[in-house]
Structures are given as structure tokens and as C-alpha cells.
């Protein structure tokens, strides 16, 4: 199984690394990160906290753009160019192809997050003289959330084109962070357990203003990631397996 999924994932990584979008987004994000310290101060003693908060937001947007641009177009592009025939006509299951594609996007998103976090660390050290290790916890949370986003996008892309994928994924992302808003009323509170939420990945407060994320919370975040990404990939595999190529 992994001997088929892994080469597909590495193929996605190799293809992604030659796409300009990854580097362009990363460069622009780095430039913006360098500009963060020039933002108006929020008060004496909290400049570095503001930096961390804005840096996390920037990291989220950067990862989202890269993840969506790769995940939304990968499978539709391969179907259109028919490069997929050479893969799935071999002894490769369609779910293996889908999971391999997702894994490749997830790895690239991880690489981008790692690179951007290193840049944040350098800026933090130069500007505030601090090693901001907690930003790595924030990067992990964003990476895991991007794993869920990528899984959703790849699943939707099994049956439709990039524009619909991006629209559907952004809608899901919005809804995923709006549980308390959408189901906050007393009458709807009972529905909350049934609505998938991405709020578990929101660790801005403990990372930017607190002492970091407790290990148990990190573990539970991992469970949420596995559950949501796994469900999306399962549904995506079912959709792709029913599709004529």
C-alpha cells in the first residue's frame, strides 16, 4: 500500500517544487513578515505578542494559498491531461492515488510552513531578541488544519473542477470556523456536536499571548485532524472510484 502511495506523494512534491506559486507566495509572505514590526504598537511590552499573532495569521494565509492552489488543480489536471491513466491502470487503487495526492500536498504545505516559521524565528530574533519557539506549535496547528483543507479539496476535486473546489473549500473553511456563530443560539446548541469544527486548530491565544499549547491539547488536535482528514479522504475515494476516467 505505502509502496504505491509514497511514490505518488513524492511525485506531487516534485511537481509542486517546480511551480512558481509556492515560491512567490513564500517570498511575499516573508516580505510581509519583515514588515510586521513596523505595525503600530499595541502597548509597551506586548510588541512581540502582536508580532506572533500577526505572523500566525500570515502563516495561515500563506499555507492556505499554497494548499488550495495545489490541491484544487492536481486531480482535475491529471484527469484532463490523462496522465492518470499510466497510474491507475497499474495495480494502484483509486483511493491510493487520492491519498497519495493528498499526502504530497500535505508534505508541501508542511515544507512551506517550516520555511515560513524559520523566517518568523529569524525576524523575531533580530527584532525582539527572542527565540519564539512557540511559533512552531502554531505552525503545527496550521499545518494540520491545512491537512484537513487539502483532504477536503482533493475529495471535492475527485468529481469537479478547480473553481468549484476552491469555492467549496473556502465555504467549508468559513463554516468550520463559525460553529459558535452559526449554532450559538440556545435553540441550536444541541446541534453543535454534529457540526465539524476547525476551531480546534485555532491556537493563536496560547501561542501569541500565553505559554503555549498543552501536550494533551496537541494530541487531541491530532485526533481531530485524523478524523476530519480521514473522513474527507474516505468520501473522496468513494467519489473517485465511481467516476469514469
Amino acid at each position, binding site marked *: 500500500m505505502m509502496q504505491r502511495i509514497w511514490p505518488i506523494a513524492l511525485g506531487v512534491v516534485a511537481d509542486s517544487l517546480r511551480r512558481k506559486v509556492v515560491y512567490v507566495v513564500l517570498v511575499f509572505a516573508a516580505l510581509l513578515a519583515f514588515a510586521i514590526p513596523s505595525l503600530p504598537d499595541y502597548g509597551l511590552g506586548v510588541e512581540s505578542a502582536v508580532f506572533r499573532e500577526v505572523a500566525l495569521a500570515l502563516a495561515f494565509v500563506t499555507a492556505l494559498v499554497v494548499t488550495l492552489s495545489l490541491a484544487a488543480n492536481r486531480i482535475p489536471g491529471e484527469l484532463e491531461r490523462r*496522465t492518470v491513466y499510466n497510474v*491507475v491502470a*497499474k495495480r*494502484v*487503487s483509486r483511493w491510493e492515488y487520492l491519498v497519495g495526492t493528498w499526502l504530497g500536498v500535505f508534505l508541501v504545505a508542511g515544507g512551506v510552513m517550516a520555511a515560513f516559521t524559520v523566517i518568523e524565528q529569524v525576524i523575531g530574533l533580530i527584532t525582539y531578541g527572542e527565540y519564539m519557539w512557540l511559533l512552531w506549535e502554531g505552525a503545527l496547528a496550521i499545518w494540520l488544519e491545512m491537512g484537513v483543507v487539502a483532504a477536503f479539496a482533493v475529495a471535492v476535486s475527485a468529481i469537479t473542477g478547480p473553481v468549484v473546489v476552491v469555492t467549496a473549500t473556502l465555504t467549508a473553511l468559513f463554516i468550520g470556523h463559525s460553529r459558535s456563530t452559526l449554532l450559538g443560539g440556545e435553540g441550536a446548541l444541541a446541534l453543535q456536536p454534529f457540526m465539524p469544527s476547525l476551531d480546534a486548530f485555532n491556537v493563536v491565544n496560547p501561542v501569541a499571548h500565553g505559554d503555549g499549547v498543552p501536550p494533551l491539547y496537541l494530541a487531541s488536535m491530532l485526533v481531530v485532524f485524523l478524523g476530519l482528514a480521514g473522513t474527507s479522504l474516505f468520501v473522496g475515494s468513494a467519489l473517485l472510484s465511481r467516476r469514469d476516467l
Partner: protein
Amino acid sequence: MSQTTAPAIHIEGARKAYKPIVGAPSREAVADVSISVAPGTIHGLLGPNGAGKTTTIKMLLGLVRPTAGMFRILGEDSTLPAGRRGVGFMPEQPYFPQHLTAAHALKLYAQLSGVPSSEIAGRTSALLERVGLAGRERSTLSTFSRGMLQRLGIAQALINEPTVVVLDEPASGLDPVGQRDVRNLMLSLRDSGVTVLLSSHQLSEVETVCDEVTILNAGRVAAKGDLDTLLDIEGRTSIRARGLGDSLPSTLAEHAVNVAVSGGVWVFSVADDAVRAAVDAVDDAGGRIEAIAPMRDSLEDYFARLLAETAGEVGAR
């Protein structure tokens, strides 16, 4: 070949109906196709555009979900990944990720086919040489011509040393030398015991290499069998003679049809029961018989006639 040998490829009652939108009438791309390919043979799949050749192949390889039918390769259900272990497939006009080099592409497909890591480099070099791409291991595929990609498509189909190879228009886009190379490759595969299912528009290619053919028209099998049986024209014999002068003797002319002459060589056909009289007439005229053989259609003529004959049936459906 033994009649009891299990077929390498067996398709039974293949059917594919497309229904574009809910409520719309379905359209049958493949209506009822059954094909059996004996091990170690080359089987041609012929038909005009839209006949259902590619859809049939895609159903066989699990790329398209069949509406009905049974698909077996080497006795296993080939619509499932596990049933395609010993299969190589070259799609029509194969495409590859453009950023890969030829060696990287073959490595990827080798890994997906389960080729042991220790064998990949050796097989890659050997296959690239076999398909005429030796020395291009490190070339990026974006620099490859159409014909080179076609050759690479054949190489990736053979990377797992398959027992059964399915080739969809393998000579498409190749120059005459390339087409000859592909023909020779198919023949060498057959000689080594590999079964080849060949879908092609190139009738000369099919006629040269195929042991048997199945001709599809409008999603149905219009004809199938070995080429000799299909192309031999029952009841007529072809005669080739020399030294008959500028015109056929009257005793011969009354029997001969499809008469052609070139460079002093006359070729004509006569009814089987008139062969003796025709030979005597050639002798009497001072001519010399060069060949007598059962009359055989060209595949091109047979194909055109068959499609014309089945056109009415198709229109009536």
C-alpha cells in the same frame, strides 16, 4: 494452439451506457462485446472512430466502470487493481508529467508496479534502449517529441515485465521507422510468450502482426476470428501468371474476374471449380503460372465492406 487453453484476456458481454444527466436517455458506447484472446498471441481490436474500442479497453483495465460484463486477465478480475498485476498498458497518446526525466518517469511507474528497487535502474536502461530512447535517460519530458513520448509510453507499459500488454494505437504519431520498430517489438513480445491486445486504426499494422482480430462497429462485434479465415474469399482462387501477352485468351477471360496486369504479370481470380480450366488455358496460351492461392481480401477492403454491410443494422438500432 490448444483449444482448451484458458484465454489470457476474456471479456464477456461488455456493456457501457452513459447517462449524461438525470432523466436523459442513456447512450450505449458499448452494447455487447465479447472477446477472448489466447495466450501468446497478438489480437487486434479494430473499428472506426466511436466503435467502442477504447471504452472496451478502459473497462477491461478498470478505468471506466462497466454497466455490465465480465472482464478477466489471466483468470483474474481485471477491473480490480490486484487483477492487473501482470498487465502493461499504453494509452492512446500517452501523457506524462512534463517536469520528470525519462528515467524518473520510468522509476515512478516501476515503483507503482511493484518492481523491486534493485531492478529498476537496470530495467529502465534496457527498456529505453529497446524503444529507441537510449541516452535520453536524463532528458526532461517537456523536451520530448510526440514520437518520443509514444516510445516512452511503450516503455512504461513494459516496465513490470507484463504477461499481457494492452496497446491503444501504439504507432500513432510515429514515423515509418518508428512504426516498424513498434511492429517488431510486438512480434518479439509474442515470441517471448507475451499476449498483446492491440487497438489500432492502422490496418496494415494489424494485418502484419495480428493472429486474430475483433472488429467493432457502433459498440458491437461486427466480426471476429483469425485473419486467414476472415480474409479468405470462399469459393474463389487467385492466380498469378506471366507470359500471356497483351490480353487474356478468350477461354481464360470468360472465367477471370478482378483482373490486373503489371510488368507482364497477370493477376486474376476464378471460381474454385474453374481453376483446372484456367490453368489449361494459361498453358495453351504459352503462359507460365507463378502462383495459385485461395483468394484473399485485403484487410482494408474487408473492413470497408463490413462497415458498409453493418451500417444498416446500426442505423436500425
